[in-house]
């Protein structure tokens, strides 16, 4: 089923514009992530798709060829995994999973068969008769996913499905979730504020800020061809070097940098992994901080731009704080982006 949103927007009664008119098309079987900082409108967008939030006049939500804009949530047949999981504490794991099928008034035998199927798929069979209150966070997350998926929804929606877990568990469950979603073969949309999570799970990522979809594309595409300073900063933590006055060179405190293209009036961004410490570098700076991160060092440098510039240094040893070093940045690693006055 193709999901299409036309002109979707939401204004709260107090006048807050949570979502500015946005269009979004998601193809069958695609896993799309809505990524953005808190308050960017990503959860509002998800809730409009689910039917849990009443959108502004003019919004159209299409599930394939059905206009579901006016359909209440219980008639939309969407599966949803909530941030807090919202499992029914008065029911066991099995009854939680069977609930959606029961609401569809399926025959008993069919319900039992489907529940077994989903239990096996989500590796929950040994826990089937437990009370949901007796489960760990990771187990609850799987039950929530199984419950949403069991009634064969047209669309699976996940609202920050990993944020209720502790950091150690989150990484392993991220891969597990990605694997399960792909095995389900279902169109899925999930909301997150964690770029790593979005990159690891989604086929396409929609980066949102201030109620707008800034850019949508594959994780690689977003990383390599960020369309705006916000996307560059949010995906891969790009740092701003400075603004180009004229032509193909950028003048910085620490030296001159040649650009791959004419950058007149645009700002130059770079990621820490592209800032290399090398004796033949065009720029020079002073080492302020050195943090050892296992596979590499994270080095803070002053005197290159107005603020601290970071470099990820893969070497076996690192320069000491206070030393002066030369830096090299390959021209193709530089991102020339137009700064929106509203979004500096």
């Amino acid at each position, binding site marked *: 089923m193709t999901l299409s949103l036309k002109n979707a927007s939401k204004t709260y009664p107090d006048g807050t514009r949570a979502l500015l008119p946005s269009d979004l098309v998601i193809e069958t079987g695609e896993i799309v992530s809505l990524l953005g900082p808190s308050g960017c409108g990503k959860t509002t967008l998800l809730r409009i798709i689910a039917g849990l939030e009443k959108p502004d006049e003019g919004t159209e939500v299409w599930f394939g060829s059905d206009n579901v804009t006016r359909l209440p949530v*219980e008639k939309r047949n969407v599966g*949803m995994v*909530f941030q807090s999981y919202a499992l029914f504490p008065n029911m066991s794991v099995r009854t939680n999973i069977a609930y959606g099928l029961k*609401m569809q008034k399926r025959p008993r035998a069919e319900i039992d068969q489907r529940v077994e199927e989903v239990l096996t798929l989500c590796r929950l069979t040994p826990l089937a008769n437990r009370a949901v209150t007796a489960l760990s966070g990771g187990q609850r997350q799987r039950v929530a996913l199984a419950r949403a998926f069991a009634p064969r929804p047209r669309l699976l929606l996940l609202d920050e499905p990993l944020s209720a877990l502790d950091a150690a568990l989150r990484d392993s469950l991220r891969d597990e979730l990605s694997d399960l979603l792909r095995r389900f073969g279902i169109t899925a949309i999930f909301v997150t504020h964690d770029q790593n999570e979005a990159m690891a799970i989604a086929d396409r990522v929609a980066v949102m800020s201030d109620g707008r979809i800034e850019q949508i594309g594959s994780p690689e595409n977003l990383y390599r061809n960020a369309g705006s300073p916000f996307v560059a900063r949010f995906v891969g933590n790009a740092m701003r070097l400075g603004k180009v006055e004229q032509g193909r060179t950028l003048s910085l405190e620490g030296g001159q940098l040649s650009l791959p293209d004419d950058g007149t009036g645009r700002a130059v961004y770079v990621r820490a992994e592209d800032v290399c410490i090398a004796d033949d570098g065009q720029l020079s700076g002073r080492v302020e901080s050195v943090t050892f991160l296992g596979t590499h060092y994270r080095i803070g440098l002053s005197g290159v731009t107005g603020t601290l510039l970071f470099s990820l240094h893969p070497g076996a040893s690192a320069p000491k704080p206070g030393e002066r070093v030369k830096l090299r940045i390959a021209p193709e690693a530089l991102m020339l982006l137009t700064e929106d006055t509203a979004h500096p």
Partner: protein
Amino acid sequence: MRFSIIKVLQLAITLLACAFLLVPAIQSVLAGLTVNYFKGVSSGLTLKWLWKVWELYADSVFLSIWLALSCLVCTIIIGVPAAYALAKNPGWISRILEEFISLPLAVPGLALALALLQLYGTMQGFRTSWSFILVGHVLYTLPFMVRSVLAVLAAIDLKTLEEGAATLGAGSLRRFCDVVVPNAMPGILAGALTVVTLSIGEFNLTWMLHTPYLKTLPVGLADSYASMRLEIASAYTLIFFVMIVPLLTAMQWASNRAQRISA
């Protein structure tokens, strides 16, 4: 272990307080079983007073139980949806409504009864039926049910649970039956315990609303104290104990159990 002076004092005060509460109760029970109270226990023990009470006031026992159960049913039917509506729509209107429901607690029972009499006293059939007393009891006990259920509903994430059920295809009635009521059960049970006990023991209101043919247990008790031998009144108290203690224990057990399940 050596008892310090403070420990001994603590124990003494505790025992004294217990004695202060228990001795009159025991004395009253004994009085109900003594042949002649003025001669003391030496006059012998008997069950004839109990039998006498049963002969005179059996109707009151049944009426009180019937009233308590009817009152429970009414407060559940009105109170649970009311608490649900209040929990779902928080805001100043709900706060005012909640206070309004609780008003009968602050207003003396006599005043409440007087108001009921002024308003409905002329409706003969209603005035003389047991349902007139029931109205008073429901009015008085409803806030306990509403508050007890509301407290539980406020403690769970009702909104998200309902949204969860809605995404799975449950309409509003199904959500109420499958999600709201089972999760509010500890509150409903605790409320039920309070309602039944209050209804059985209610005197103020009932005394104003009763007719000579409709005496509840406490009204009958007052009647027996006023017009019968002290032994009969005491035997009556004993019957009251025998009735209310197992009821209280059973409901306490039920509500503890519900709390364990929900925890």
